[in-house]
């Protein structure tokens, strides 16, 4: 079930440098959103920007009928979003897209969640689901990376879940110094990523996704990536969100908004 409606802002607070968590009232999204799914949010001044933008669902509060996303202020829409106060409204369509597929039997798999910057929110929702479904906490490994400590999000939420958590920053200002793939390499070298019973889930900037996908391929680990493209409609009709994939018939385009945003890393043709 999906909605397309104006939703009331419940809260909109800063969580990191240029990053905010906005909570919105939408019983449909709160009840139906799955880890990896997104909502298309539209705020305009006149006709600018014309289209809504996609944001991954971060937390859901089904009892209250609220959900939230974390957004990084980048351009016009997110600047307008940052000005929204409690009681204002935002046009929301969703939940949209597919979800991360949990490898089964979930209790026997090592789930490796790799987050880059503002890619962390949907992986938090996934980690929460895994824990709630009874997957032992030590079998949920989260590698949460960002350029600097002040850009790292969701860290305290992951910590609360009690999962096996790594923080990594490129400048070493928090946690390990380096990139998420450095942590993965370390884990692998210590034999902690057994290819037969591991599943990698990644969300973050394209360059990171590509690096994680290559790492996974090299170590024969199944890997799912949440792809970032522009998404004018979010509903599968404009074909402006194409992702190049390898199929049995050769190269083809899939739509990130309905066939994704989560793709099997092995099928993606990296630019």
């Amino acid at each position, binding site marked *: 079930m999906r909605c397309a409606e104006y939703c009331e802002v419940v809260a909109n607070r800063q969580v990191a440098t240029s990053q905010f968590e906005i909570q919105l009232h939408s019983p449909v999204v709160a009840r139906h959103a799955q880890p990896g799914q997104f909502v298309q949010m539209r705020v305009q001044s006149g006709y600018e920007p014309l*289209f809504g933008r996609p944001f991954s669902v971060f937390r859901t509060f089904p009892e209250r009928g609220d959900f939230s996303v974390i957004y990084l202020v980048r351009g016009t829409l997110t600047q307008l979003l940052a000005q929204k106060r409690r009681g204002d409204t935002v046009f929301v*369509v969703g939940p949209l897209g597919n979800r991360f597929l949990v490898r089964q039997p979930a209790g026997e798999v090592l789930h490796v969640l790799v987050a880059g910057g503002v890619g962390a929110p949907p992986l938090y929702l996934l980690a929460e689901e895994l824990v709630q479904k009874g997957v032992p906490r030590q079998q949920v490994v989260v590698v949460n990376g960002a350029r600097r400590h002040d850009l790292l999000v969701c860290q305290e939420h992951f910590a609360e879940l009690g999962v096996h958590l790594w923080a990594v920053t490129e400048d070493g200002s928090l946690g390990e110094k380096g990139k998420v793939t450095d942590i993965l390499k370390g884990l692998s070298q210590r034999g902690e990523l057994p290819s037969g019973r591991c599943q990698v889930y990644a969300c973050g900037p394209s360059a990171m996704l590509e690096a994680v996908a290559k790492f996974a391929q090299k170590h024969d680990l199944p890997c799912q990536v949440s792809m970032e493209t522009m998404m004018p409609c979010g*509903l599968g*009709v404009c*074909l402006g969100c*194409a992702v190049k994939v390898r199929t049995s018939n050769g*190269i083809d385009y899939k739509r990130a908004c309905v066939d994704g945003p989560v793709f099997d890393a092995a099928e993606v043709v990296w630019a």
Partner: protein
Amino acid sequence: MSKVKMEVQLGPLRLQNPVLVASGTFGYGSEYADLVDLNRLGGIMVKGTTLHPRAGNPMPRMVETAAGCLNSIGLQNVGVEAFIHEKLPFLRQYRCAVIVNIAGDSYEEFEQLAERLDGVDGVHALELNISCPNQEKGGIHFGVDPEATRKVVSRVRRRTRLPLIVKLSPNVTDITVNARAAVDGGADILSLVNTFVGTAIDAKTRRFKLANITGGLSGPAIKPLALYMVWQVAQAVKVPLIGMGGIMNATDAVEFLLAGASAVAVGTANYLNPRVSIEVLEGIEQYLREQGEKDVKDIVGTVKRCKPESEF
């Protein structure tokens, strides 16, 4: 509430109301079915369909511009056979008219498409997308060359009994010339406009923003241009018109009716508000009631000149 008559007759094509959704902006209907009551639409113009499936152009294919967007999707579609077998059965459940937008690279392709769709249950009309390159003429668009327009329309005309809509390209010097050519060829209805060719450049990276360099401009930015073309064509030909180009709300739609369109199509606006077509329909009805009109067809082409200065 007094009832206004919304049914319209466009030549051989009857529509339960004059609000359609434009090709390429509503998929095959199923994508919107849980959000929009398809039974309430006048009709659905499905995604441009070619003889064989097409993968489309490389990314990036779309870019936002001031109050509009440029697209160079490259007619990515499932092809006519998959359309008939996989998409049409779903659409048959609904009351709204199904209009198949067809595109080809040659006269033969257009003919084969028309022949294939003729008599297929659930197809109510064809819309010829002639804004595509004619390979026999070095790639010049069918819709730009009046002689090619007339020829492609008349060749399709002979292959189908379906109502024939010809979608005009706005990328011409005088659109009335192309409109007359389409009517000469046997068009029952004209739809206009398709997108305006344009481009966008990123000053920082010094690169074009679209992989294809050019794209078609749509959205509110083109409304004044489209509205003028509809008015011009309404003066030039007798066949009914379907107006489109930047319709975002009911007022925009009413303006197209006043300019001479018997029906309208909502395009790009579907992306930002999936329910906009229903809002446009309800808004037109409300407008007619407020204006004391009983039948939507009575306002078609009734725009008058600006008040003379003395009356201000």
